[in-house]
């Protein structure tokens, strides 16, 4: 089984610890993980803003980068949904515009092997207890593309329930969008912020120390609102929770990168590498 990590552009640049956590987790489960460096962005920001043609080279690139692999695992519900839902559309439209079947074929090869992380764990590896330890109170926000486009259902929750030390708190209005929506957050800032404010209010109401999702893009928005308010809740990707163990507590995937409570980035950014802004592990 040849498994590749599709880390996604946002994680690569802004949340590399999520990518490292996926590697840690999968290797712990006995999976050898590859990282073809040819990979880049799935094209979702361009596609969802209306620039379908600008997305086409990225579809080809995705296909080239991962063609030697049986599985492509990505810690992002929305990037997985981009590949699975929209690549075939991009291929079909290119064919309809008289530009051949090449993109459609690339899409057809990419779709069946692309898995969001929790899908890969539950459906392919058939594992729910990944041996994780995360001694914190956590609430889970099901991000829209994971929930409705991929149909992740309760897979993330099943994984979280098996994590030792973790107390899961139900999030009221969980299925409602956080208001990120990619360029929506910039094109409709008033509505996006209003949606985010309600999501943050619900998160704070749970009393959780951390809010967890399968998408760091939504967490940038939710976390950005939380830190602006100085709220003591840390946004954390599910991969980082699942990668944590008793032994690793205090290393890369847990405390040094901001185990709760979160330090405010304003403080950490200026005051040396501590708290959330820091990348303590692996220097």
């Amino acid at each position, binding site marked *: 089984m040849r498994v*590749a990590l599709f*880390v996604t552009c946002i*994680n*690569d*640049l*802004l949340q*590399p*610890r999520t*990518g490292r956590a996926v590697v840690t987790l999968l290797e712990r489960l006995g999976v*050898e993980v*590859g*990282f*073809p*460096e*040819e990979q*880049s962005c799935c*094209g979702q*920001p361009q*596609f*969802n*803003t*209306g*620039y*379908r043609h*600008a997305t086409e*080279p990225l579809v080809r*690139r995705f296909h*080239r980068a991962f*063609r*030697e*692999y049986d599985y492509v695992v990505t810690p992002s519900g929305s990037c997985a949904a981009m590949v699975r839902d929209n690549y075939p559309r991009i291929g079909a439209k290119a064919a309809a515009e008289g530009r051949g079947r090449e993109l459609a074929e690339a899409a057809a090869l990419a779709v069946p092997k692309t898995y969001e992380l929790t899908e890969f764990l539950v459906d392919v590896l058939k594992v729910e207890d990944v041996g994780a330890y995360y001694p914190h109170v956590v609430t889970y926000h099901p991000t829209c593309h994971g929930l*409705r486009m991929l149909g992740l259902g309760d897979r993330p929750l099943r994984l979280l329930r098996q994590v030792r030390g973790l107390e899961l708190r139900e999030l009221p209005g969980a299925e*409602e*969008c956080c*208001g990120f*929506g*990619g*360029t*929506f*957050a*910039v094109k*409709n*800032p*008033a*509505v*996006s*912020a*209003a*949606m*985010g*404010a309600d999501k943050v209010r619900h998160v704070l109401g749970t009393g959780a120390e951390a809010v967890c999702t399968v998408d760091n893009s939504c967490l*940038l928005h939710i976390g*950005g609102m939380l830190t602006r308010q100085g709220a003591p809740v840390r946004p954390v990707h599910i991969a980082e929770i699942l990668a944590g163990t008793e032994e690793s507590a205090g290393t890369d995937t847990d405390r040094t990168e901001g185990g709760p409570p979160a330090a405010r*980035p304003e403080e950490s*950014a200026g005051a040396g590498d501590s708290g*959330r*802004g820091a*990348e303590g592990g*692996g*220097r």
Partner: protein
Amino acid sequence: MSGTYLGMPAFPRAAAVSTRDAQLRANLTHATHTIRDKRARAVAELDDWAQLRAAGAAVKDRTLRHLDRYLEQLEAAVVAAGGRVHWAADAAEANRIVTELVRETGEREVVKVKSMATQEIGLNEALEKAGIRAYETDLAELIVQLGADLPSHILVPAIHRNRAEIRDIFRREMGRWGRPAPEGLSDAPAELAEAARLHLREKFLTAKVGISGANFMVAETGTLVVVESEGNGRMCLTLPETLISVVGIEKVVPTWQDLEIFLQLLPRSSTAERMNPYTSTWTGTVDGDGPRTFHLVLLDNGRTDTLADTVGRQALRCIRCSACLNVCPVYERAGGHAYGSPYPGPIGAILTPQLRGLAGPLEESLPYASSLCGACYEVCPVAIDIPEVLVHLRERVVEGGPGVRDGARVVLKPAKGHAAERAAMRAAAWAFDHPRVLRRGMRLAARTRRLHPRRLPGPGRAWSQARDLPVVPPESFREWWRRTRGGSSGQPSREQGDTE
């Protein structure tokens, strides 16, 4: 008199104002959450909902593919049953036809059944200009009309008003339109309903002309169907001597058997009712029963153009249930008026730009009035993939492309005001297709991380006004992988195709 949607600002500008209206937000949150929860329960009762939904979509698609045939069949059946059929290519023609038909009766007042098509064409305003007064008889439409307001929801046009506001409108305005509100009217729902009942009863009993839309038209028999819950529709459809129905051409279904599907889908989706309370059907005219004269005005007004778009045409399946509005987080916070059309919410965001064309800043902004969360598609009883159409229309906005306007093939130009975004999107896509350039950029971002501001000027302000910017870590994932794994991809393929 009522307001007008003409000249409304682009969605983000309108929403920036409406999201700050605490009363509006509270009214909408309460109302939409109540309806959405009831709908979810009503739909969950049916084991075969998914099949019903698929059947509804399939019947609509098949009918739309052969729309010309079914419309001619419908016309022949209506005429055979004693009705008259008029074809209106656009709003102006429809208004002209209806005004002329009312004039022929010599009447100066008409009663109306709640109708989206007549809202779409601005019929009341057109009649007003011709000296004809149109009385809305649906309770919520009455509230909107008395308040010189605009509908903000397809099913519940006065959803933005609460009981106290409605009491004030009734007290202030009813006397100017007819029977005044009772002395000491409170905001108890039963009292408000009774005040409306007494006020409207006078209109029903005196009106000689009724105007309606229709939810469905059955081609095989020429039968029109109106689905409502208050009984005002039944009054308007049966008591007047002349009935004029303005109906969009996409409302036709081939047979009564097809209708069966929609009479299950619509009530549960819209009002969360198992069965619709008042379902009125009529076929032409009948001696000694109901209106003596019946006119059907078939309205195109951009529908044929929409039908030409293979992705966008699914919007014509819509049965106006408004389930998508009730689950939409954007609608809930921005309110219906921000959509600048009688069709608000997710369906409005795909219908208005297609019916009117991407005609101006408002229409061009509507496809972006969504976070693409997909809740609308999930609840749509005829499976309109609204996010798919939104993205498709966004492409039309920024890239232009082929389209049909007024029946003629045109090539749309990209909208103005997207030049900077277009350049940025193309540059980003180019960089993402050139990993060495990208890696250099990422390294630069990491090295300058301590210089990054927490808030941005210019367009970036939209992000950093409400949220902190993320801190760029010192090492990208890619760099970490290279450093710890020696640049090997771990497995099969090596980097290639980088044409830097």
